[in-house]
């Protein structure tokens, strides 16, 4: 059993282990598990040493907090000043971050020790980490299978005990799905709850930063540290308008029709039903809910995300940073740079996004998707008048074989069927381990709450962990 942040904090406080020992243990563990390919490289020795020193001083001065001295891995799309970051893309092979992400600033203030960069699907586009330019991340529970994605490295490194917490980004399920496939806890916050400043943009109206941990309590502690208004991100929720705690009605909604559709693995379904049964036996009321159009949220998502991707990826032109391939004129060098530097899935999504935004198709795709998005927001609002949380399996199937879906993008997109509605609507959700299937592969339960009701998720999540 991997140790939680809370347990390690006690060990550090009681001097059972020093910060340096803890960090060295993490580094050794990551090196031992290099075949999993969860990380893309360590941060510089100088930087790691500075952080260790700061953490030791904070302990000595009695100023240590929950994350002081805790080794941490960050997804490769989060910036740390003076260190490498590349979103697992060839186009950013030599990129050095010019500034800290706000999340990183907060972690540094806490005295946390950032040690390595996590592997991911290139720019966050994928559900298996197979789209990384640096090779797939293997699932620690079965190395012939994927770790999920796009934050596959972040989930795997926590799952094999490399670090007690890692950070990822979740645009359509990229924290929750790999967490489910690797058997760890993944929290996706309300859109705007955590600053995106310093996160490489993919789908700007959908992107969120969140964490992978070994327990729900750790997820709560980490969320409370990284969330908050930020003047560098105008979409963050203002501190004074943040919702206060909501009373629990002990009521769960299950969109039965949506879950019972084709394509959901029978063991996933059984495990989900067992989880719901546990809540019922503990005195929770479970009602069947109907969320109109939730089954087409996947389509809404892919139209919107591709549109936003096509805009956000325009900056990778080989002029100001990143790979630059010279050719006979500047226009040809754009083509060369983007074609050599960007992988298949990124190129496919840029082309799809260009299509749905182009004149003649804009109304039928992008505009329509935004209309349905508004309808979905209203549907969720109605549901949350009745229940505290919506429960769904996190993924329709357990970890799949490496290569199984690699050549069928649509089949890969369907891996996100239960996670994308959350991003489309902007609400928070958590994935919690809910057992294993007959082959020993982890399964996850996803709980979804109303905007800014992360605390409801943590309360329910802790209850579920105890059932």
């Amino acid at each position, binding site marked *: 059993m991997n140790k939680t942040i809370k347990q390690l904090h006690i060990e550090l406080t009681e001097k059972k282990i020093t910060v340096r020992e803890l960090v060295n243990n993490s580094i050794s563990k990551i090196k031992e598990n290099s075949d999993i390919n969860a990380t893309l490289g360590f941060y510089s020795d100088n930087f790691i040493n500075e952080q260790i020193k700061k953490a030791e001083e904070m302990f000595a001065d009695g100023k240590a907090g929950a994350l002081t001295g805790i080794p941490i891995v960050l997804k490769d799309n989060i910036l740390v*000043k*003076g260190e490498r970051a590349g979103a697992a893309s060839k186009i950013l092979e*030599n*990129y*050095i971050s*010019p*500034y800290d992400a706000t999340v990183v600033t907060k972690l540094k203030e806490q005295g946390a020790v950032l040690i390595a960069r996590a592997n991911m699907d290139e720019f966050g586009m994928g559900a298996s980490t197979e789209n990384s330019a640096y090779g797939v991340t293997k699932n620690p529970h079965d190395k012939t299978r994927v770790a999920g994605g796009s934050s596959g490295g972040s989930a795997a490194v926590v799952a094999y005990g490399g670090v007690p917490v890692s950070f990822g980004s979740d645009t359509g399920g990229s924290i929750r799905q790999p967490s489910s496939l690797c058997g760890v806890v993944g929290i996706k916050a309300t859109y*705007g709850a955590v600053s995106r400043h310093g996160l490489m943009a993919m789908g700007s109206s959908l992107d969120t930063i969140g964490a992978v941990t070994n327990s729900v309590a750790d997820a709560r502690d980490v969320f409370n540290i990284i969330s908050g208004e930020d*003047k560098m991100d*105008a*979409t963050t*929720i203002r501190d004074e*308008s943040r919702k206060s705690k909501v009373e629990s009605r002990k009521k769960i909604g299950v969109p039965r029709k949506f879950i019972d559709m084709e394509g959901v693995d029978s063991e996933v379904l059984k495990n989900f039903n067992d989880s719901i049964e546990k809540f019922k036996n503990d005195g929770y009321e479970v009602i069947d809910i109907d969320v109109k*159009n939730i089954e*087409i949220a996947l*389509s*809404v998502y*892919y*139209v919107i995300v591709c549109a936003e991707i*096509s805009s956000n990826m325009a900056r990778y*032109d*080989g*002029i*100001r*940073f*990143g*790979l*630059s391939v*010279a050719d006979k*004129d*500047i*226009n040809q*060098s754009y*083509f*060369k740079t*983007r*074609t050599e530097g*960007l992988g298949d899935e990124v*190129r*496919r999504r*840029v*082309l*799809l996004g*260009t*299509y749905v935004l*182009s004149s003649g198709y804009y109304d*039928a*795709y992008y505009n*329509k*998707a935004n*209309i*349905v998005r*508004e*309808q979905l*927001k*209203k549907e969720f609002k109605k549901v949350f008048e009745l229940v505290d949380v919506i429960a769904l399996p996190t993924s329709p199937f357990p970890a799949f074989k490496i290569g199984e879906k690699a050549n069928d*993008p*649509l089949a890969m*997109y369907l891996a996100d069927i239960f996670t994308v509605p959350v991003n489309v609507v902007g609400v928070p959700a958590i994935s919690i381990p809910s057992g294993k299937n007959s082959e020993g592969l982890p399964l996850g339960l996803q709980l979804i709450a109303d*905007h800014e009701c992360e605390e409801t998720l943590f309360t329910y999540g802790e209850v579920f962990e105890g059932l």
Partner: protein
Amino acid sequence: MNFTLDDLDNLSKLARISIKEEEKGKMLEDMKAILGYVSEINNTSSDTIKEKEKHYNIVRDDVVTNEQGLNTKAILDNAPDTEDGYVKVAQVLK
């Protein structure tokens, strides 16, 4: 799904992304499958009134907030080609 090789070539030009001849067949099939799938959004009604968002534009005074030159080196160090503190690009107009 009515999506042709000409459409693909046009998108490729707009997005400044080349697709190799041998990749075109697969890319075309994938794009058709995905666009065909997401077209289901058009089977829904279009009546909705946009809810008031909690997010809104935040403006600030147009003043320099950073110390001059604070990030210049870090930014220029990432540029493929520079000269005298400028990013250097190939000639655009001939």
